[in-house]
């Protein structure tokens, strides 16, 4: 992990990724905009600071695929030509990650609750079968912590002391048909992960210094869980904290307003 974290540089990268992401969704008229915006800062941190060449990342919240595509593109792991095919016929970049689609995405996801078991299996193999120091990160949505398979994998990871596994939960508090607290209460969420045997930190998932600090805790024999408190639709005021923007595509006016808000945020932050 880099010692000299530069939050301003990360913020610039995240802005560029958000612009790319919005352009992709506007062009494609595709939904899941809010879910991607909540994850982009975590993805930016991961790809800029955390992931080393042999580490693996599993996007368990597969509906955030476009935010991952935009991030991979920003960090040179997807070409312009590849990204240009997003959501079009004959693409390897559909709305949810495809199996064996692109090298940087090892697993197809989209049905929730699949990513953590896969990530735990990879971490087990790296630690005990391959004896490498490769690490595995897995990004979950909070909604998919409704899935029993997520907790099956949590039991497995803790039992086998997979301290090479880090779980990030993009805890934006909203799932398919409402707020997580109204659908199926997850709180006390951190205590649940602790009780399952994880080292847990909670932080603002849009604050790079906070993410950095959450991961800077000394490593123990336990797997780690970072509950990143996020805002669904982060960065675009009319998308923030709504269920609607899980589903809606943007029209031209939405897109123009969203870009204007990013421009304004940039000029205010980097004056």
């Amino acid at each position: 992990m880099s010692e000299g974290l530069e939050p301003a540089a990360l913020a610039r990268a995240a802005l560029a990724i958000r612009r790319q992401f919005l352009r992709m969704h506007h062009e494609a008229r595709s939904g899941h905009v809010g879910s991607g915006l909540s994850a982009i800062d975590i993805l930016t941190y991961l790809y800029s600071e955390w992931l080393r060449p042999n580490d693996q990342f599993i996007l368990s919240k597969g509906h955030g695929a476009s935010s991952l595509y935009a991030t991979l593109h920003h960090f040179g792991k997807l070409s312009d030509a590849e990204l240009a095919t997003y959501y079009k016929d004959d693409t390897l970049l559909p709305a949810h990650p495809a199996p064996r689609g692109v090298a940087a995405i090892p697993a197809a996801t989209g049905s929730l609750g699949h990513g953590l078991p896969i990530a735990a299996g990879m971490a087990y193999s790296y630690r005990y079968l391959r004896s490498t120091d490769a690490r595995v990160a897995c990004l979950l949505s909070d909604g998919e912590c409704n899935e029993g398979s997520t907790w099956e994998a949590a039991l497995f990871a803790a039992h086998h002391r997979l301290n090479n596994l880090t779980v990030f939960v993009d805890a934006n508090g909203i799932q398919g048909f409402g707020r997580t607290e109204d659908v199926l209460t997850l709180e006390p969420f951190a205590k649940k992960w602790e009780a399952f045997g994880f080292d847990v930190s909670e932080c603002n998932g849009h604050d790079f210094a906070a993410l950095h600090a959450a991961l800077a805790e000394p490593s123990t024999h336990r797997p780690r869980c970072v509950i990143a408190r996020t805002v669904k639709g982060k960065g675009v005021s009319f998308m923030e904290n709504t269920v609607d923007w899980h589903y809606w595509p943007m029209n031209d006016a939405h897109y123009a307003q969203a870009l204007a808000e990013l421009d304004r945020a940039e000029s205010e932050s980097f004056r």
Partner: protein
Amino acid sequence: MRVDFVKAVELVLARDADALFVTGDLGFNALEGLVAKYGKRFINAGVAEQGMIGLAAGIALTGKRPWVYSIAPFATYRCLEQIRNDVCLHQLPVRIVGNGGGYTYGIMGSTHHALEDLAVLKVLPNMQLFFPCANDQVAAAVALQAELDGPSYLRLAVSAYSTERTPLSEHPLTLTRSYATRADRSKPGVTVIGAGHGVQVALRALAAHGLDRENVDVFGVARFPFRLAEDSALLASLLETKNVVFVEEHYAAGGMGESMKLALPQFTAFSLMSASYRPDQRYGSAAFHMQQTQLTPEALVMLVQTQLRAT
């Protein structure tokens, strides 16, 4: 078949350093030797079948080749989506092993019967199914599975009608066995095909119920997708008799019989003996269930005779 499987998979583990064994907390009194010998290459995933298949897929993504074991209904239904998404869509060499196919676990009750396992798995992309006819075919099936780069399923079972009959021949790749050939190829005959341990019904009928007095060829098929073009003896029999009785310890819908019928020329007469779930279902030994669903050697002989009279 479980004993034969453990012996066969031990050979694979000894030979292939990238192979490992995962169980869903089952295998008492059978797998203890593997635990002692293979350390971290033996994983008990706990009573957590979805997680078990998912983690096996994750391990396979790192270049390993896991064998994943549970009883047949548990290894297939709860975790079907993990088998589909995590294993089959990724074309991973995860070898799923279900012990107790068909009515093997008779008195354990319906939850423990596996009568749809081949149906739900056969439709999955890249999946290959192995269902040995007898204990002495398990090693060959395991050896073939061990060579595959993609997903496979092994159905282990114990037939209520188990015999010790030695096959006349076995195809090395399709695993199709010939158990009996017609006395007179110029006369009308019937091709009896058993799927996996379902063939034991026919073998018992040959040994003790007079099926040997009829003009029948008896084959056991043990692998799906079928490769009829390579199965020259079976193909020749089908073309000559145009008359098939198929036996399987599995529901008719989605079973191997249904697929076999589709693979045959349209003019072939085809009867299917299969399992059923009755509104007045009662429970007992595997033999009791076979009787209840009329999957018996006596019923097979009658069906063959009826079909011969019709030709």
